[in-house]
């Protein structure tokens, strides 16, 4: 095999090569010292680029509730507004007449009003265009002061009741197929009930990618991935986690029904103090592998997860 080009090296380090292609790259790397050196250079380049981008990242906030529909649509001009307003006025008038004429006639226009609720919903923000405008400008003028304070508090915008209902339904739908999500939620809930602060670690979900083997995991992370010794490894996956340049998830089974995930993440060195603090604390607690951010997730109490975390050792092939 000829030398590996830059694009392929980046795709390899990003975990985006098909297994057969990755194997080809590894075969070549094993024989070619020049390409191994380039691999390290490109890895450093990727880490550095991720670090730079991390400096221009939005503040790390908790996931706010989904607020469908309460976001102001782009400001419309009066001639664009007039048509829906006319619609709504017509409907309101029809309803009014219907109510005036009595219940027998009143049944008529109601379905029409329902059908038009979409229009009405989109209209809501237009009813008070002045406050909408102010609300939009306020952040622009006050931000100078507020943006520099640490991003401690999540935006406390409660979801309106109607939409919360809709969201609940959505979440209920999401439950059955999303077993890992359920597991993580439970872990998060356990952590919180145990009084572990939620921001001790970035409570983000690693988006799980393709499976990889231990050797590739080693190459991608630049170190052997960590796992709990003596527990069977069910699988190993590439993953993406914002702020980390390489992430590998080792899936292990505690017993036949209990599965834990060990997340090995190489951070893009954070420069902002707010972002760096939690991972620095985690690293201080874990001296075994400098530079890797580690977390154990599973349907266990925070204490058990912490205990498992202390037992993590580099995985031997």
């Amino acid at each position, binding site marked *: 095999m000829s030398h590996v*080009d*830059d*694009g*392929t*090296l*980046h*795709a390899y380090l*990003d975990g*985006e090569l098909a297994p057969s292609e990755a194997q080809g790259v590894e075969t070549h790397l094993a024989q070619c010292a020049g390409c191994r050196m380039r691999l390290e250079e490109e890895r450093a*380049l990727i880490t*550095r*680029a*991720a670090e*730079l*981008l991390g*400096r*221009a*990242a*939005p*503040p790390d906030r908790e*996931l*706010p509730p*989904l*607020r*469908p*529909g*309460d*976001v*102001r*649509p*782009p*400001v419309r001009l009066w001639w664009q507004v007039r048509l829906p307003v006319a619609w709504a006025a017509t409907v309101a008038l029809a309803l009014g007449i219907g109510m005036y004429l009595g219940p027998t006639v009143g049944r008529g226009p109601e379905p029409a009003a329902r059908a038009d609720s979409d229009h009405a919903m989109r209209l809501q923000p237009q009813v008070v265009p002045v406050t909408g405008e102010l609300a939009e*400008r306020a*952040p*622009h*003028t006050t*931000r*100078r*002061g507020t943006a*520099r304070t640490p*991003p401690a508090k999540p*935006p406390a915008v409660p979801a309106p009741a109607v939409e919360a209902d*809709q*969201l609940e339904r*959505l*979440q209920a*739908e*999401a439950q059955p*197929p*999303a077993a890992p*999500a359920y597991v993580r939620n439970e872990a998060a809930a356990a952590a919180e009930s145990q009084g572990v602060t939620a921001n001790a670690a970035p409570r*983000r*979900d690693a*988006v*799980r*990618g393709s499976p990889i083997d231990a050797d590739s995991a080693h190459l991608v992370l630049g170190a052997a991935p960590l796992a709990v010794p003596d527990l069977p490894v069910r699988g190993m996956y590439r993953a*993406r*986690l*914002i702020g980390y340049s390489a992430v590998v998830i080792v899936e292990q089974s505690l017993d036949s029904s209990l599965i834990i995930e060990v997340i090995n993440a190489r951070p893009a060195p954070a*420069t902002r103090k707010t972002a760096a603090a939690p991972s620095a604390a985690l690293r201080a607690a874990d001296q075994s592998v400098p530079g890797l951010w580690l977390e154990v997730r599973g349907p266990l109490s925070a204490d058990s997860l912490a205990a498992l975390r202390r037992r993590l050792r580099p995985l031997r092939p």
Partner: protein
Amino acid sequence: MSDVTPDSLAEIYRTTYHALVRFLYRKVWDAERAEDLAQEAFARALVHKPESARGWLFIVAANMARDDARRAARERRHLTLLTAESPESTPALDDAVHAETERAQVRAALEQLTPRDREVLLLWDSGLSYEEIATHTGLARGAVGTTLARARRRLLDAYEAGTKGEHVARG
């Protein structure tokens, strides 16, 4: 990766919201605005129920950010008149100034990339896979790695050149 996650919006919201905010932030450079736009993108997804929601969300977000930038530019012309005489707020902490400076330097470096290189880099940094990036940009999947390699290198070069230039100007 979109075929891995269950195609339910609540799940996608949970896994993609931060990524979308991150992507939008590098376009509008305003955290609150980026969050609002991300919410709006999800609200639209609730209505449209697109098939591959993740990719769809990023495309919609990119379009919204573009419209937003145009509108912001229009508004700035008005606002400069209003805010011209407002006094600068109290001097912020050194850390914040430092972070702000770095952010500005990265932003300047990003703006020196070609639009395509920048888009690919930002999409990757927001958590999209090569496959998703290829769909979003129309690049061949095999070209994503090459584009990323170039974009990363140029970002670093532009950043180094920018900070060096600043030192020269200061010294």
